[in-house]
């Protein structure tokens, strides 16, 4: 399994938990428009959960620019690499 795919899977579990939806499937193209309730407050909750899961911290600028799953995976890959 590629590194990206592994990150996506771990993210999917986080998304399901944060948005309280076990059916929620995400991929690179998923954006805030595709997920009900993905507003600014849920975004911060999501990012706190992502930081915890991946053991990394993002600054406000990085968090503020994200609008979809593809960008989030890029960010995690960059940080891990």
């Amino acid at each position, binding site marked *: 399994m590629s590194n990206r795919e592994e990150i996506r899977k771990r993210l999917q579990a986080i998304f399901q938990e944060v948005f309280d939806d076990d059916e929620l499937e995400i991929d690179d193209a998923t954006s805030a428009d595709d997920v009900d309730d993905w507003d*600014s407050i849920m975004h911060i909750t999501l990012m706190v959960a992502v930081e915890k899961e991946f053991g990394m911290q993002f600054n406000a600028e990085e*968090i*503020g620019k994200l609008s979809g799953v593809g960008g989030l995976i890029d960010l995690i890959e960059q940080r891990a690499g």
Partner: protein
Amino acid sequence: MDHLQVFLDHLREHHAVFYGAVAATAEAMPGTFRRVGAPMADWAHACLGDDFARVLAEGYVHLVIEANQAQMRYEKRGSYEHRSYAEVYEAAYGNEAFMTKYHWGLYVAMFAWVHHLRLFSFYEREFLPRLGEGLTEGGREVVADLGSGSGIWSRFALDAHPGLACVGVDISPTSVDEARRMAASTGFAARSEFVLGDATAHRLVEPAHAAISSFLLEHLERPEALLDNLAANLAQGGYAWITAALTAAEIDHITEFRRESEIVRLVEDAGLRVIATLSETPRAARSKLRFVPRSMAVVAQKRRNDIW
């Protein structure tokens, strides 16, 4: 050009996650949103030039992230992070990079947050009309704005009353510079003065016709010192507009107000008579949370004696 729309388009394109709440505010209170947001976007454009939408959007997004993160930590801890005022000064008011974002972020929050727009409607209804009392044609009555930030509250008072001038006092050099720059670029320099100073101690040359202190109380270790000084700077019978945040954590909030009556009490103890109050919650407040951030406004009048 419709600068408000330029800003909204920029926010939607570059910070999609943060756009929805602002669009919801515009939909919930379309008239007030435009009445407040359109001139503010024009003033920001006059002050910042064509890059204004980026500066406003980045400031706003930064503010929302910082505030929401602080609120989540507060919800877990059960109290504010209790920094000393000196620490907050170093991290925020005295830090130019931080303060520039914060300054423009707060500026946008004035029209982007529905609870702030509701406070603004209350301001238009309960405070601005009172300032007309005793204003003379061609006179130069002063409104003191303590902790003025961008000076936006007094700016709307100046817009409503051509006979009024403002003196803004702020401790942050960045905010004072930005407020002066905006007054100069929008033709208000002759009626606006912004001075660097401590709002708990600064005295005007003469008592002011009216006083404003918006969202400074919760930033202080001794909020009563601000209200005492506000009362000392206000002519007898003069009106005051005071706002504060309750159970709303931000990195620069020190005094944690839990109940509205605490603020009313402080205002009364400073020698003012409370005339009207309003307490509002943000649109997105979730009921399962222990702390719901609120914003409260008080319209008061300097008492003539102990009773009234």
